[in-house]
């Protein structure tokens, strides 16, 4: 029988790559808590998913140019992510069917990215871009993740009121004369967040650690700011559990972390429903 210490502490104590993964996940969880909660509140989950894939072709071009360098992958991803966010905005303004347009982007971007990476790289490279390498984060990548996360958290803290109110009642903001394009600013922050996550979780999974902890936190019906903190906590918990399970069971870390976050979402839903069903009974009993 393994001791608790060997089960939980030792992997991080003895292995530098596990520590780097943990620190990266902490930075990403803090950022994703804020971004994800706003995404859920704005009912933009699908947009997040699409932007996640929009990062793909640009990252692939970065890969073709410089190999698997975190900087070039990120710059490329940032460029194509922002381009698609802008195009998406234009399409909506032109009055086309938004969901169909978004899904079209999503499929084309994903396929284009895979084709570009496979053209010059190997299958391993394709897998790396799609699912990330949370266990192969070096110091440069870690610094980059920390820097991106910090910028995003600070930006959301500064713009919290208009971003939160824009999620609730955007027509009111326009009517009181707010002309700044906070919707576009938020889309840019989502792209930035996805680029930060992309090294660890890949373009296919990056949306998972963003949306699932936030959706889980939202179940509890708390205020927006508290919800963000809870989502960050859920994200960190899912990361720790996911890293340990993947280490002991020799499973791919990114997907296991996303599964752990999904489990938290399911448990939150179940718990809140159980409380709702029990609450009237308890009230009558007292």
């Amino acid at each position, binding site marked *: 029988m393994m001791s608790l210490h060997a089960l939980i502490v030792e992997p991080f104590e003895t292995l530098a790559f596990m520590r780097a993964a943990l620190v990266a996940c902490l930075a990403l969880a803090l950022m994703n808590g804020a971004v994800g909660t706003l995404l859920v509140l704005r009912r933009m989950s699908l947009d997040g998913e699409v932007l996640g894939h929009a990062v793909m072709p640009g990252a692939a071009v970065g890969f073709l140019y410089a190999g698997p360098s975190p900087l070039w992958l990120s710059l490329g991803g940032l460029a194509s992510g922002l381009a698609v966010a802008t195009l998406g905005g234009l399409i909506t303004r032109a009055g086309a069917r938004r969901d169909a347009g978004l899904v079209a982007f999503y499929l084309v971007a994903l396929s284009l990215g895979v084709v570009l990476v496979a053209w010059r790289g190997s299958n391993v490279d394709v897998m790396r871009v799609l699912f990330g390498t949370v266990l192969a984060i070096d110091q440069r990548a870690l610094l980059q993740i920390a820097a991106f996360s910090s910028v995003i958290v600070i930006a959301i803290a*500064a713009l919290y009121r208009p971003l939160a109110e824009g*999620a*609730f009642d955007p*027509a009111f903001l*326009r009517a*009181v*004369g*707010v002309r700044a394009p906070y919707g576009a600013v938020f889309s840019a922050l989502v792209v930035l967040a996805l680029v930060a996550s992309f090294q660890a979780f890949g373009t296919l999974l990056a949306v998972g650690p963003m949306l699932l902890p936030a959706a889980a936190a939202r179940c509890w019906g708390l205020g*927006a700011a508290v*919800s963000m903190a809870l989502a960050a906590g859920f994200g960190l918990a899912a990361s720790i559990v996911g890293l340990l399970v993947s280490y002991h069971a020799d499973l791919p870390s990114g997907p296991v972390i996303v599964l752990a976050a999904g489990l938290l979402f399911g448990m939150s839903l179940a718990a809140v429903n159980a409380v709702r069903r029990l609450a009237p009974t308890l009230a009558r009993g007292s």
Partner: protein
Amino acid sequence: MEADGRVLLHDVTVRYGRRVALEAVSGEFGAGSLTAVVGANGAGKSTLLAAIAGVVRLATGVVNCAARQRLAYLPQLASIDRDYPLTVSELIALGGWREFGAFRSPGTALRARAAAAAETVGLGGRLGRPIAEISVGELQRALFARLVLQDAAVILLDEPFAAIDPHTMPVLLDQVTRWHQEGRTVIAVVHDLDLVQARFPSTLVLARRCLAWGATEMALPAMAA
């Protein structure tokens, strides 16, 4: 209230794609007037308010409103996300947005005004409640209180009385009357023609174009025709 509460429309046309929602509407809402906008479904009533509020693009024409900086717009209740984590007092305090803006918190004076406004619409005991837990009627009262805080010269109300319970109805109507007495310009989309007859001095009848516009007893018969 100052005399700049006039709203002038000149040849206002709005299109959604190829569909014409509002066609060549011209006329004037006088300062301090209380006007009901009536018409069948799809007649462009909501579009007219959105055009005056400046939230849809005009295909042709101009909306002239000197009080643009002091205009308040209440869209249909259905456009509000009721699951949003916000309390009644926070919702009402948003009416002071122009005072605190994007980067500052509402001050104590504003909070006191929010509490007073809540009192006038009968929500005094509900300030700390999340909006997800209050009734539709109470939500509409809270939105009216938010409008009170906005202290607007021109107030646009899109179907403010739709799906409202009988206890809330008189509260909302009294508030509309109070705004009218204070000399504010009020433009409301209303379905209940008896209500229009009883409470609104002026009426605008829409069917994409303007069918009639003027004193209610003159204009309203165009609705039946």
